[in-house]
């Protein structure tokens, strides 16, 4: 029955929390919650993203970069960034040696202001410059990888166990109002620093448990819009799809999830006429964005946290509420690790999003 077991609880661990009042939480409890799901990983990848951590530089894009080698690979990136804008500040991301983690990259952060005149034809020049730079740098593989590129947020990840990765970055020293964390059990590609979650582009971050068997179709579709898939794993396609559907096409988060995990045709056939029309239109327009295979996914931007599963619910996802906070995780126990008094533990229906938004 291994195949059924695989469908029921495997693998990877997810935890996410949003404080709708933007009250800050340090990373210590997130670390504990993620580490409590060590059983879901294999020590080959873990990561965290926190929103609200760079208030002093909040108007600049915070680029987190893995360098293979500072001396050789940093200067070309500096030059490229200076060509497209201004480096306001840059520094090595502080790390702390861990016995269980081999430091194969040097993490670096830039606070960067793109020059909008460099993309005169674009209506969103700053975002398009950042996207262009991320795609260019990551596909050229010249000893530098930009793995985080949003404002006032940062991804911290590596190949290792959740607690080792957290201690490597001292994640407890960061204060965010929205956190996502992920513990990886790589199945179809090998584990490496860039392949750890969260995946990020601009203000979008994604963590994912499962596999996207429609990756080939989704990748062809998203690459036709200029995105490049470079991380040897399926999850990055979700970050780009969400960026395309929500930022570029203006869909709501709920409609985007409907496009990615739509109802089955026979369900649509039984809907009232108006709903039928809407769901047909979404399926026909976004057919190549439909994601198949088992998955539970959390997506975040600076205002919201969204969780959803595949259409036949082959991966676990539960949510809970506590005052202004919404939690989403693979396991209820992980949520209770952060807040033992969490209420309204619920399991979202297959394909239906659970959404938490900041009060604005």
């Amino acid at each position: 029955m291994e195949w059924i077991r695989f469908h029921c609880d495997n693998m990877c661990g997810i935890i996410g929390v949003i404080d709708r009042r933007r009250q800050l939480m340090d990373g210590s409890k997130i670390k504990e919650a993620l580490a409590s799901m060590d059983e879901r990983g294999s020590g080959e990848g873990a990561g965290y993203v926190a929103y609200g951590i760079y208030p002093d530089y909040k108007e600049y894009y915070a680029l987190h970069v893995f360098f293979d080698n500072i001396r050789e690979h940093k200067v070309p990136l500096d030059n490229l960034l200076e060509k497209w804008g201004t480096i306001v500040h840059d520094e090595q991301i502080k790390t702390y040696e861990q016995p269980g983690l081999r430091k194969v990259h040097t993490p670096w952060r830039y606070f960067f202001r793109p020059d909008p005149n460099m993309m005169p034809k674009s209506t969103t020049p700053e975002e398009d410059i950042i996207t262009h730079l991320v795609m260019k740098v990551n596909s050229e593989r010249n000893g530098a990888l930009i793995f985080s590129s949003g404002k006032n947020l940062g991804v911290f990840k590596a190949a290792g166990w959740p607690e080792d990765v957290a201690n490597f970055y001292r994640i407890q020293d960061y204060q965010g109002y929205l956190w996502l964390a992920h513990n990886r059990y790589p199945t179809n590609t090998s584990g490496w620093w860039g392949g750890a979650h969260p995946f990020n582009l601009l203000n979008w971050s994604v963590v994912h448990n499962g596999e996207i068997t429609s990756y080939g179709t989704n990748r062809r579709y998203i690459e036709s819009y200029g995105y490049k898939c470079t991380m040897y794993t399926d999850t990055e396609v979700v970050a780009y799809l969400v960026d395309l559907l929500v930022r570029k096409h203006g869909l709501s988060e709920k409609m985007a999830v409907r496009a990615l995990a739509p109802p089955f045709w026979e369900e649509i056939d039984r809907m009232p006429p108006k709903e039928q029309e809407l769901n047909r239109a979404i399926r026909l327009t976004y057919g190549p964005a439909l994601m198949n295979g088992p998955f539970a996914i959390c997506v975040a931007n600076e205002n919201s946290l969204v969780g959803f599963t595949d259409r036949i619910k082959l991966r676990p996802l539960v949510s809970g509420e506590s005052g202004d906070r919404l939690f989403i995780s693979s396991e209820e126990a992980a949520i209770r690790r952060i807040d033992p008094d969490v209420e309204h533990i619920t399991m979202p229906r297959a394909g239906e999003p659970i959404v938490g938004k900041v009060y604005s």
Partner: protein
Amino acid sequence: MMNSVRIDAKDLHYTPLNQQIRAAVASGAKEIIIDNVLGQRFIGDGLRGDDVTITVNGVPGGDLAMFMSGPTVIVKGNADHAPGNTMDKGKVIIHGSAGDAVAHSMRGGRVYVRDNIGYRGGIHMKQYLEKRPILVVGGSARAFLGEYMAGGLLIVLGLNSLSPASERGIGSGIHGGEIIIRGTVDENNLGVGAKQQPITNNERQAIMPIIMDFAQVFGIDSSCFRTDTYTRIIPASARPFANKYTWE
């Protein structure tokens, strides 16, 4: 009580926790109470001893009582995925809800869940000779209830005023055993290979002692159960996929 053992599971990994449980059973304990359980998987797995009762205070992790043969496990909280996985004998009583694949491949004994269960409840439950596993759910069940079911009995009561089974794929691929739903079931929600029929008087009589036992365990008012309507879902054939995977 002489034969009672209390274990504090706070920040304890499941391996030492299960070692302590096994040591307690080996030394003759009949009642084991585990406090501060939070996410530990595999509690009571493979455990034997018909007269042992384990009380789990907290929220255990997945695969509770997997392969267990004999003991009773009482959970005072919600359970995660697949409690009663391939369980052979004994009881699991959950005072809360449970995750996906409850009673997965169960062989014998009983699993009672007071509230709701996730997707694929009773997946591939089986039976052989005197071994007939029973899963009773007080609340509601999500889609693919009794998927690939090969035997045993699955009852969903819908006591929380939700519809007991209102999602797709009920009995998808069922080829043995039976699913009893209190109330009616939308034909659209039946899975491939499943068919429904109204319950007969004899069948109702046969399940009543089980429902009464469930009600008594959780202190639920049982006055309506004898007169309520029930739907019985059974295999349309013993080989629902005969023409899908083989050609004869």
